[in-house]
Every structure is written in C-alpha cells, then in structure tokens.
C-alpha cells in the first residue's frame, strides 16, 4: 500500500490527532474516529492505506494515554485489533497460520469504513429530500370518514338445528320418569317368571315368556328380553329352571328344573 503521500502530511496529521483527542467525546465509536482520520489521507476510501490509518489510530491512543485521557473500552479494543492488523501487514505471512491474511482484514476494515461513509451520505441525501410538513403539506382540514355501523345478525342452519335440538332434548329429559314405561327391570321379570315357570315342564322359548304389549317398540322388546334373560339366569342359579340354546343366535329355551 502506498505510504509516500502520508509521510508528507505527518505534521498535519499530528495536529489533527490532537484536535481529535480534545473532541473524542464527539465521536461515535472507534469506527467513526477512524473514518474521520481517514480523511487526512485525502484519498478515495477504496484506495485508503489501512496500515497508515492503523498507525495513526495507534498514535492517537498513545497520546491520549500520555495525556491521561480515559478512553472507552471499545477504543482500546480497536487499538489492540489494529496493532494485531499492523503486525499481520508488516510481517511475512506464517504458513502455519490458517487465519485470514492481513490483506483480507485490512480490506474488510476498508469496506466497513466505506460502508459507514456511504450510509452517512445516504442519510444526508435522505434528510435533504423534500419533507412532509416542511416542504410539502397534507390536507389542512382532513374530513374524517364517518363510520356508519350497521349490525347484521346471522345464524346458520346448523345453529338453527342445534337450537331446536337443544329445546327438544330438554323436553325429552324433563319427564325422565316417562321412560320407565319402556323399561322392565329384572325384578319385575323375575316376579313374572316365578309365577309362570311352574306351568312349564317342557322346553319353551324364553321369548314366549315376554309379556303382552312389550313388542310395540324395539326399545320395549329389548328391555323385556334383557330383563327376562337376566331373570332366567337368576332362576338357573337358584336351581329353579334349566336353560339351553342349540347354537349361536338360536332361540333360548327354558324349562322347570327336573332335579
């Protein structure tokens, strides 16, 4: 990297450094300070001498220390990093080292400076634009859109059906006792069968024991069949009757116990 031009400006640079030290609070971090320093090189940021810049920055830090100015930690971190960068740039590359080369690090720093400068320029261009409320203006008396609220009610067929179902279900459960007339308990069946079984010496189907009027609805049939079957099992257990079935789903037959 060319350094010739820089040496000639050394005195000027030193004066600038002193100005920087006085003003260090005015800088927004080490990158900002580096960007300001880079201006002393008076070159395109893409052609900047990072080595010269590093030396300038390190010199600045030295002077600040000599003047016992307390520098924020990030300025010192940058100084350490630049010292490392400087050694990388000056010493021949170590073939053992796999890290980035000094040139790569320098190029990145130059990129960062260029990018920061670019953003500053962009910010300045942005702020120089015509601005609302300063250069151009909005309607002075905006008319608010008056909101007319209209409420519509909606319901789906499903809502309607669920509503009706709700009402009807309530109805069916209210007279819950009503269902009793469709139910025959085992005790009822047992009472009936005890009375009837005495007449049955022959095998008779269980179905024939079902009471009249209990075949009017499947529910009644089912309840009666179930209770009579349960009752018949009770009677078998008590040894009163015998029970047989010729095969699956065949009719169940009972007769008075012969034993």
């Amino acid at each position: 990297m060319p350094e010739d031009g820089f040496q000639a400006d050394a005195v000027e640079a030193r004066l600038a450094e002193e100005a920087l030290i006085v003003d260090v609070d005015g800088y927004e971090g080490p990158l900002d300070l580096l960007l300001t320093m880079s201006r002393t090189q008076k070159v395109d940021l893409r052609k900047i001498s990072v080595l010269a810049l590093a030396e300038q920055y390190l010199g600045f830090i030295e002077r600040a220390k000599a003047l016992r100015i307390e520098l924020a930690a990030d300025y010192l971190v940058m100084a350490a990093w630049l010292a490392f960068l400087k050694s990388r740039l000056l010493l021949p590359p170590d073939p053992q080292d796999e890290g980035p080369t000094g040139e790569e690090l320098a190029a990145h720093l130059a990129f960062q400076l260029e990018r920061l400068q670019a953003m500053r320029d962009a910010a300045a261009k942005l702020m120089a634009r015509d601005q609302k409320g300063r250069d151009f203006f909005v309607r002075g008396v905006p008319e608010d859109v008056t909101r007319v609220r209209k409420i519509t009610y909606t319901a789906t067929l499903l809502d309607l059906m669920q509503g009706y179902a709700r009402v009807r279900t309530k109805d069916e459960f209210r007279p819950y006792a009503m269902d009793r007339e469709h139910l025959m308990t085992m005790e009822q069946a047992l009472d009936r069968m005890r009375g009837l079984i005495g007449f049955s010496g022959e095998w008779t189907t269980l179905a024939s024991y079902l009471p009249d009027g209990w075949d009017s609805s499947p529910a009644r049939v089912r309840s009666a069949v179930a209770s009579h079957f349960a009752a018949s099992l009770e009677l078998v257990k008590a040894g009163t009757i015998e029970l047989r079935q010729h095969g699956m789903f065949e009719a169940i037959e009972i007769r008075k116990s012969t034993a």
Partner: protein
Amino acid sequence: MSDSEDDIASLFEAPPEGEQERMVEAILFASAEPVTVAELNARMPHGADAAAALAGLKKRYDGRGVHVVKVGEAWAMRTAPDLGFLMQKETVETRKLSRAAIETLAIVAYHQPATRAEIEEIRGVSVSRGTIDQLLELEWIRFGRRRMTPGRPVTYVVTQEFLDHFGLESARDLPGLKELRSAGLLESRPPPGEPQEEDDEADQTAMFEDKD
C-alpha cells in the same frame, strides 16, 4: 425550495397568473381554516393578485370532486356536496343471533304457525318481546293468522327471507328429529349421576323415534 434569484424576481415582478393559481390552490388545500383574500395576498409574493387567482381556480374546479367555496369572507376548498356519501364508511358488523332468538326461530320454523304461548311451552321459559321483535325485524318471521282459540292469539310463521337465508325451499325441508340425531345434534345430556349411560340413552331414544 426557493432560491435567491426567484426571491429577487418576485420583488419586482409578480409571478405569472398560472403560478398564482397554483399558490392559492396549495394554500387553500393545506390551510386548516378558510383563508381571506387579504391573507392570501399577504402570503403570496409581492404583486400577486389573489382575488384574480381565486376566480381562476374556482372556475378550474367547477364540476370537479373538490370545490372552491366562500365561507363568510374567506375561501376554502371542500369536497363536492354530491360526493358526501363517499365520506361515510359503512362498517357491517355481523353478530351471531342469541341463543334465545335461535331457539325461538327454530320453534317457529318447526311448529309454525306457533303462538307465543306455544313457543314458551316448548322452550320452557318465557320469550322476551325483544327476541320476537328482533326476528320480525330480520324478516325471518312474520305474523301468521290468529289462532281461533280464546284470546285469538297471533301466530308466527317463517318468511321467504328465512328460507332464503337458510337455503331451504320450504320449512318442510328442515331436517327432522331423526336427521338431527343421526347428525349427532341430539346427543342428549346424560341423566344426572349416570354419565356412562349416555350412549344407551341416546340409542334407545333413537329407536323410539324410528317408529314415529
């Protein structure tokens, strides 16, 4: 923004007429209050004739969506009165019908014509005036014939509007209890204390209905 040459020019020469019109236009547009001719003249460059510019501007906006109008002694721009409807935004809020209203509507639909007393009997609770009114207002129910019973109570029936809304050809197309059940809509509440019998109960009920 203005540059000094313009400023100097304006000291000696009034801006051209078209330019003055633009100025009045911008001022009236941005101003929160009507602006008098005197104020316009004061704000515009020296030598400008706001009254003339206003006249030109007013003509230019003739028949447009925005008018230049005189408010007392001052001038303002306003949207054309015939477009006032654009400044209203109708927000349609859709709300679910209340449970009471749904149930009442359902009962009317399934039992029409139904009197209020009948609705109350089926629902097991009294029906508020508001509920009926709401359904009447929605035009989902209307008055049917009076019942020829003591007191001659009014009956309610569902409307064509109702059928349209629910996508029905006629109230007869309403699904029957059986379909409600097979759709799982009549899943009964379990009797108190016997939750596990719920299924039996539902089945049994279904069997009764088969015979209906």
